[in-house]
């Protein structure tokens, strides 16, 4: 019996559990995969219980996500949501009948006037889908037939920190897992030498001092830290502590790991603690990452025409364009969730000048990424999302002049777009009123977007739960509706 018992403790528990109908939820492969499948032992402790999985709940359309998060709140009125009415009535006050008591941030609540303003930029229609795009996005305008615009996004938060946290975790307050962690928890990893949830950061040129980010945005919250997002940075140590110390060769490291494993195995024989096996396998994974990460970061094997497609910035590591290219490389390696953040969209003043630089940062890289995925056949099952935490007001913050204006945060309506992953291409969902202020058709709440995203992965957002502190938690909290109108048939 001892032998048998040990066998079950040490071998491929996940397989057993799955067959026994326990589901793989609590035992799912982590963001940092554990190839021996001993992961179960890492999650002891009663607070870590499985959801009513196994997943998926139904056939998935998508396998991977690239989320191009535009931090700061891009102005939908200057990019995608064309409102000629605002140009026509430029300078007149926003009527109370439209504002309807919407709460304002502390930055404009003291203004005596709220003069509306259209965009200084021209809008045109593009593609077969006749989507409106402003001159700020010349490259994106060429790929509109791949995109699904949602012009009726709305959120509950009016300031950056809670609003970004809400988008990424489903709650305005810190402490919940981010989407990528949820997906790692629920769906596991697709590969065994890279984390399944990877984060890339870039700083925008639009604003002199962009809003900062914070690591809890890719935190695992109450889920196991196996599911935390791993930040890949530009430079010689893309993952913290990845490089061997100077002068330590691969050979040497291998030698040490071999002896280490043998010493640890001896420990395991003494204590019968399955933790030790998972430790041994973690060292092997770490060793593999030392090869796999630099490999995926090294773009020297990319042909010139590809780099040109992403634009000149793609040659500079750490830029948005370079990160888009990197995102594609990671997706090719079957990383589940690549989360980009690009800061700098917070144009309270001097918007016309700032947003031009900001849009230049992202326009070409975004378009290139979509086309690149498409030409490799990856767009089909990769969902790309582009959007920020809220939109911007139709009225001017500060002084409105002939050539200048600013816009405050606007939670009540804004635009994002998606591509691939079984989302309807060349489509536009939802409408705002002539003022670009209120949604008049097909609203999409943040939880709706999250529910729809999970749905594309075969996950019922009401069923992917995690029980802690006596309560069942979901990404979508207690709401969220799958918006089937945007799904490709």
């Amino acid at each position: 019996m001892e032998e048998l018992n040990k066998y079950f403790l040490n071998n491929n528990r996940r397989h057993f559990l799955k067959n026994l109908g326990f589901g793989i939820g609590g035992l799912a492969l982590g963001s940092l995969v554990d190839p021996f499948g001993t992961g179960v032992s890492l999650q002891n402790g009663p607070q870590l219980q499985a959801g009513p999985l196994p997943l998926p709940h139904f056939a998935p359309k998508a396998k991977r996500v690239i989320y191009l998060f535009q931090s700061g709140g891009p102005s939908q009125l200057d990019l995608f949501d064309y409102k000629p009415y605002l140009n026509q009535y430029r300078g007149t006050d926003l009527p109370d009948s439209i504002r309807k008591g919407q709460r304002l941030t502390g930055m404009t609540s003291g203004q005596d006037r709220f003069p509306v303003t259209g965009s200084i930029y021209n809008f045109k229609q593009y593609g077969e889908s006749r989507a409106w795009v402003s001159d700020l996005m010349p490259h994106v305008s060429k790929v509109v037939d791949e995109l699904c615009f949602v012009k009726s996004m709305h959120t509950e938060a009016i300031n950056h920190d809670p609003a970004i946290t809400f988008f990424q975790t489903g709650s305005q307050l810190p402490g919940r897992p981010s989407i990528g962690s949820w997906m790692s928890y629920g769906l596991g990893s697709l590969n065994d030498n890279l984390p399944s949830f990877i984060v890339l950061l870039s700083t925008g040129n639009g604003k002199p001092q962009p809003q900062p980010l914070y690591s809890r945005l890719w935190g695992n919250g109450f889920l196991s830290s196996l599911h935390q997002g791993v930040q890949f940075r530009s430079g010689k140590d893309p993952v913290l502590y990845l490089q061997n110390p100077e002068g330590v060769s691969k050979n040497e490291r291998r030698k040490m790991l071999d002896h280490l494993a043998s010493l640890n195995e001896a420990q395991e024989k003494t204590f019968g603690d399955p933790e030790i096996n998972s430790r041994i396998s973690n060292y092997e994974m770490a060793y593999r990452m030392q090869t796999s990460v630099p490999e995926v970061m090294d773009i020297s094997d990319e042909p010139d025409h590809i780099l040109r497609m992403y634009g000149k910035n793609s040659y500079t590591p750490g830029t948005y364009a370079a990160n888009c290219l990197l995102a594609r490389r990671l997706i090719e390696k079957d990383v589940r969730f690549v989360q980009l953040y690009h800061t700098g969209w917070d144009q309270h003043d001097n918007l016309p000048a700032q947003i031009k630089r900001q849009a230049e940062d992202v326009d070409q890289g975004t378009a290139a990424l979509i086309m690149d995925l498409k030409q490799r056949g990856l767009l089909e099952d990769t969902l790309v999302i582009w959007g920020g935490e809220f939109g911007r007001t139709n009225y001017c913050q500060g002084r409105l002049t002939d050539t200048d204006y600013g816009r405050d945060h606007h939670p009540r309506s804004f635009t994002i777009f998606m591509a691939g992953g079984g989302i309807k291409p060349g489509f536009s969902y939802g409408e705002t009123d002539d003022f670009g202020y209120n949604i008049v058709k097909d609203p999409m709440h943040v939880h709706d977007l999250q529910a729809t995203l999970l749905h594309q992965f075969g996950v019922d957002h009401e069923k992917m739960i995690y029980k802690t502190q006596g309560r069942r938690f979901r990404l979508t909290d207690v709401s969220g509706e799958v918006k089937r109108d945007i799904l490709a048939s």
Partner: protein
Amino acid sequence: MKKLSPLLFFLGAFVFALVLRSIYPSQPDGELQPIASSGLTESSNVSIPEVVSYNFDVKPILSDKCYTCHGPDPNAVEANFRLDVSRDWYRVSQENPQKQIIFPKNLSKSELVDRIRSTRASHQMPPPESNLILSETEKQIIEKWIEQGAEWSTHWAYNSPIKNNPSDHDFDHWNLNPIDQFVGAQMAKKGLKPSARAPKELLLRRLYFDLTGLPPSVSEIDRFLKDKSEDAYEKVVDQLLQSSSYGERMASIWMDIARYADTNGYQDDTERFMWPWRDWVIHAYNKNLPYDEFVSWQLAGDLLPDATKEQILATGFNRNHMITQEGGVIEEEYRVEYVADRTATTAKSFMGLTMECARCHDHKYDELTQKDYFNLYSFFNRLEEKGRIGYQEVAEPKIKLNQELVNNELRFVQWPDSIPDVEVMVMKEVEDLRNTYVLNRGAYDAPTAIEAEGGMPENILKFDARYPKNRLGLTQWLFDPQNPLTARVAVNNLWQQLFGMGIVATPSDFGNQGALPTHPKLLDWLAVTFMEEGWDTKKMIKRMVMSATYQQSSKPNALQLEIDPKNHYLSVFPRQKLTAEMIRDNVLVSSGLFVDKIGGPSVKPYQPPGLWDDLTGGSTSNSLKRYIMSSSGNQYRRSLYTYWKRTAPPPGMVTFDASTRDYCTVERQKTSTPLQSLILLNDPQVQMAAQSIASLILDSEIEKDKDRVVAIHRRITGRIPNKKSLSEMMDYLDNIGDLHKEKEKGLSSEDIEKRSFTSLALLIYNLDETSQKS
């Protein structure tokens, strides 16, 4: 085990499944049924006790699967029927007047049974759309309970603890103190036997980490090994409890509960100065301030008669929450969050209640109303504080500390010469500042007309009319000897600190959804004793570490693994991973790099460059834009003192499961990831330690390589390696020496020796045993 016959495979899987499935920990003392000892009985019978306990067997099921719609929250109650209180149970069935919802001792007359057995979607409970499913075992437990009379009893944790004498067991010489009698009795019922005492080296290391957070030195180990006197162990226990490292160890746990950090936390994340409060915590533990005072000062020190500066400083506890600077926020929205944070933290850390669940609506599982929540909330709502602070601003209310004040009244604050003064946030009551109203759905902009005047939930303990309705009254309620929660929660946290898991495995939830105690009588005995002894923390810790239970070996035998694979019944000492702080501090101490200096401003040890730059806003004058590493030994201080910037916390800490400090945490995660391996392999701090320890040993009088290996191994793991490991390490030393020789021709033999021993030390730093408390 190379080949496994299909039958064996099935049987083993079956046993394993049963073990997992058994509703842990579902049995009170005296109602135990071995989980899987006899092998293969019918699965449905296995985890159902002979006598079903409402509190321990039935209510956890009802709570988890039924209360959402038939529980305490009146806005969510369906069919006007509640299962959490007995008054609705015996109602006549509307479907069939011959039946009741629950008919004691009669299944066929109980509608509840029809409902849980129904297969009609419209009739079945829980309804299919709830996504909640009752297992066959759960249904049988409910039925057995009805058969046995369906009796009601108050939630176990809301009954005041009663001190029962422990029952006897037959394990000879295994009664060092009452803890062992309780634990032994439980073991005996399970068919388990206690383990032998741990080898002295392992025991000493365990004790050192538990009481001081640091490893023993080689000479301390030797002294203990040589001391054959009866009280050798006890002498060490006393010595460690008297050392100042004890306070630091205890404080490092308290920092998680208190969500301590050196920055404000939201987006711009500027600096704050709460370290004098942290120094107070260390001081309070070291002078063994009784727990009731320790907590009362932190919650309400400012309200004590003639409050001293020390008592006021202690209230910094509830100002450690995050504070925003983000331009444009609506201040009241954030002010409300701060009050809510204090409310949740207080309930979680001292009462084991998930009070925050009652912020938006009455609690779904526990008998806590939204009014209860706001009554507690009102205690923390009378501060003159702002929702948003400016850059460089320290939030009011605050006290100013300077050298003079420290010299006169706060001598425990480790004040460096270099700083003029520091403002520390504290609590300050302004009577009649504002009334508290229940907020609809907990939202700052939706006050109702219902006023919350302060008080505590009556079903736990009546809030005595003599208590003032403020934070001081709250502490009087908490430390009323009749309070059923405070002492239980406190001793459970101490237990968790030593044994890795509390007697109640959910230390912050003693409610209906929380885990049940594995040793309920022991928990109560400890709780009452703690109160009787005047909330003496050191004495309680000493009692726990002096127990035979604590001193057991951590090496399980086959029977133990089979009967109790998760070791809930403590027949071996539970092997545990060291905390983030301990792992790094062990590296520093063993290598001689460690600088042992108590208190003072937080310090900045090595971290990879650029992390703050990546995540910090461009706001000019932000002193936290760039991380500047400390010098003059401050980079080698205990990890307790590592600077905590909330938006970019130290990666070496959070990777090893330190809490984020964004909110109160009573229990850390326990994970094992490749990122942890990378740190231990490649962190320059570990590299430096490996070099340092190699030099130390090579420069010492120890001459033989074997002895040198042993010496390094002892410094790092506290143990002399066995023959086999030693020869494995000697092999490695040879191999790696050859590699060094090959790689760089012309190295002196001294250089090669130095490099080889450095490599060896690094290997030992990466051993599993190094990071474990065995």
